[in-house]
């Protein structure tokens, strides 16, 4: 029986930063052998981004990188050098999948684009993922996820009220949408190749993938001209619906997220909050929707001195969806994530042990796992160039000196 779902699958991974690496992480954590091809000549910017061990920057101290590249190996090649290209081509027969996330012309320049690689390996599956796709007038425009979140509409629907400046989702939001689509693409393409023997090229525009999480608003605009905007925490269907401040805990602010979706839930909420006197402004869902501002104040006053964790238990027991608004300390003490086995403590070669985000899925027969933290830069040079490609130690040393392996 196979230990991992993707045992025996090999991935040569030229991608970097968020989308590509998170995509190939799905494969690596499930047993595929993934080799990241990096270079000190253009280090993955995630290696240079916080959080770092002890808050100290360094090429191997970023957990941002280590987390998105679990279970992978790292080699270094300066692809601008002809000898580096030869080594890539020596690895090509081994690879089922090549993934990359350069801007579109880089691989063409190095003659490592799909047309070149396919000539040597006809059933290759290749994923190119970049900001706006391989074709079109803006194909070469660089960018990163934070800007993509603005371009693909997420900033505009984020905020307290129309007319106020946007309050964007945190960070490079679309970097966390596209990888799930890209992983589906690679997995389905692998299965298609298994059935038909045919590989293929996958051109993923992170912009186009990200727009799927906004689809209803886009369909609406094309059909009716209506432009979706920010709405605070208000729902179009339910009230109360929002985040309400509870009692502080050890000097830290605590909020409770809450959604009351029926009359039963409303009664349950009131009971869990100590049965305050009835208020006719809130007697029905329609009335509550009508008087949302007053309702938010009413609920806010009921919970302001209460403990968010205790309220969660009481509200959920009454059938009401509620949970504390958790900060990055809270999520490490969360009983439900703990029970799911979410956090993985991994011992990184340079930064030592720390908790890594685990898998958001659990498979009964072939469970994935974080097999190792992300590699140090070039950690597997000797193993890959020596053991896999059969280069002797002297030649590897020479290639390092010539900054081919770099």
């Amino acid at each position, binding site marked *: 029986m196979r230990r991992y*779902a993707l045992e025996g699958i090999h991935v040569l991974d030229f991608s970097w930063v968020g989308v590509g690496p998170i995509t190939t992480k799905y494969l690596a954590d499930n047993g595929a052998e993934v080799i990241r091809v990096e270079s000190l000549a253009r280090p993955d910017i995630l290696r240079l981004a916080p959080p770092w061990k002890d808050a100290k920057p360094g090429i191997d101290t970023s957990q941002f990188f280590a987390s998105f590249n679990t279970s992978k190996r790292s080699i270094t090649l300066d692809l601008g050098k002809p000898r580096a290209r030869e080594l890539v081509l020596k690895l090509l027969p081994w690879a089922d999948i090549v993934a990359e996330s350069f801007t579109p012309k880089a691989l063409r320049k190095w003659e490592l684009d799909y047309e070149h690689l396919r000539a040597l390996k006809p059933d290759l599956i290749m994923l190119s993922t970049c900001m706006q796709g391989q074709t079109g007038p803006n194909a070469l*425009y660089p960018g990163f996820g934070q*800007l993509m979140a*603005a371009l693909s509409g997420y900033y505009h629907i984020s905020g307290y009220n129309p007319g106020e400046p946007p309050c964007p989702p945190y960070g490079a939001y679309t970097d966390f949408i596209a990888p*799930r689509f890209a992983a589906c693409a690679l997995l389905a393409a692998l299965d298609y190749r298994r059935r038909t023997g045919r590989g293929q090229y996958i051109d993923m525009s992170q912009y186009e993938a990200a727009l799927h999480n906004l689809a209803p608003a886009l369909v609406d605009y094309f059909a009716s001209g209506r432009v979706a905007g920010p709405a605070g925490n208000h729902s179009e269907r339910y009230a109360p619906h929002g985040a309400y401040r509870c009692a502080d805990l050890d000097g830290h602010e605590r909020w409770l997220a809450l959604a009351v979706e029926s009359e039963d839930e409303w009664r349950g909420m009131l009971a869990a909050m100590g049965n305050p006197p009835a208020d006719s402004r809130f007697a029905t869902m329609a009335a509550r929707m009508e008087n949302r501002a007053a309702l938010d104040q009413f609920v806010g006053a009921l919970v302001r001195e209460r403990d968010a964790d205790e309220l969660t238990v009481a509200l959920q027991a009454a059938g009401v969806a509620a949970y504390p608004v958790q900060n*990055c300390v809270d999520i490490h003490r969360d009983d*439900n994530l703990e029970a799911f086995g979410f956090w993985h403590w991994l011992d990184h070669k340079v930064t030592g042990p720390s908790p890594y985000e685990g898998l958001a899925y659990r498979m*009964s027969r*072939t469970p*994935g796992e974080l097999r190792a933290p992300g590699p140090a830069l070039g950690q597997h040079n000797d193993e890959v160039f020596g053991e896999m490609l059969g280069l002797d130690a002297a030649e590897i040393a020479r290639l390092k000196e010539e900054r081919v392996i770099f």
Partner: protein
Amino acid sequence: MGSELLSGFRMLDLADEKGALGSKIFADMGADVIKVEPPQGCSTRRIPPFLDDLPDPDRSLYFIAYQAGKRSVTLNLGSPDGRALLEDLVRKSDFLLESFPVGYMESLGLGYDRLTELNPRIIHTSVTPFGDTGPGRNYKAADIVSWAAGGPMFLMGDEGRPPLEMALPQAGLHAGAEAAVASLLAHYSREIEGQGQRVVIDMQACVLWTLMNEQAMPILHGDYIRRTGMYYTATGTRRRLVYACKDGYISTVLAGGSGVGAISMKGLVEWMAARGFAADWMVAKDWTTWVPGILMKATEQDRDEIADLEERVQRFFNTMTKREIYAEALKRRILLAPVATAADIADDEQLKARNYFVRVEHDTLGRTLTLPGAFAKFSATPVGPGRRAPRLGEHNAEVWGELLRIDGARLGRLRAIGAI
């Protein structure tokens, strides 16, 4: 019609908005996705807004967008005959996706043990709000509650004001897409070994995966990140991410660095200088090493420069529209983006050039609607929404009749007793 990518595989979709995007991805890739709806219809038919604001089970924009390409049958799982029909469907399917409360399938006698008895190849994927074993396994989760539980909500919003979610709920979409990935992982293994498996998705964890690794800040840097509105503050300096312009907002991160960062800053400063908005220090600056407050802590001098730069850029952008600024940024390779609205996206030249949006005939509504197209361009097996979302029970006849070979008399009986 329909993609060849997953053609020949069938998914039974019993999920609500916690799974809809997952089965939509399968449908886009050519799988035969059968939505198994209760007689009153899937709850996603009631999600507003509605097309032309007319509430109707076929007019929910959510339903139109995320149930496209699927077939629909109606089935009453409360009736023994209804459950028997689902068992018949399981025998002829490869995947079953559901998002029922934990334990519900077991209570119907349709837990994974039973499903695998019926069809050892079946992959049974359950989307759960908080996993299936912890103290919260029976907790309810509305989208905003998952957004809160996973961590991103705490980081979104202004200091001193409530944490925020986006106007279009996102948690269920992340969980649905994750369900598609995990189901396909199980699929690859199954196609080699012949044996399906049970997959459980934890929606809270799916949402947590949007945190940019900020989870590690308390352990590595000693403190957690607070929400700071339109500013980036992870390295202790407030860096502005949003600037007003004539008709809306622009997002940019003013930072240099080797590569595209310095090109971007140089391009912006040249453009500002030509229009009389740049300070002398900005023109003289070597931008290749200037990334304060983004990748490094800022010095006193950096802070002064940041303040001056951000103020000047704000004044500069105020003189132009989103479209003017973005057009020039594209030419000069300045890293910025308009804070785009649905209208801007619909009009975007890049998406038009790649024929991204697709028109899908909705004969039932007398309309042709425009939907997001392929999530990626596949050279051998193009994907995308092939046909409109189904009417309730639209495919009863073909599924019960052609797929399960139930004859007319038995269908009549099943209808009469409320099984379908």
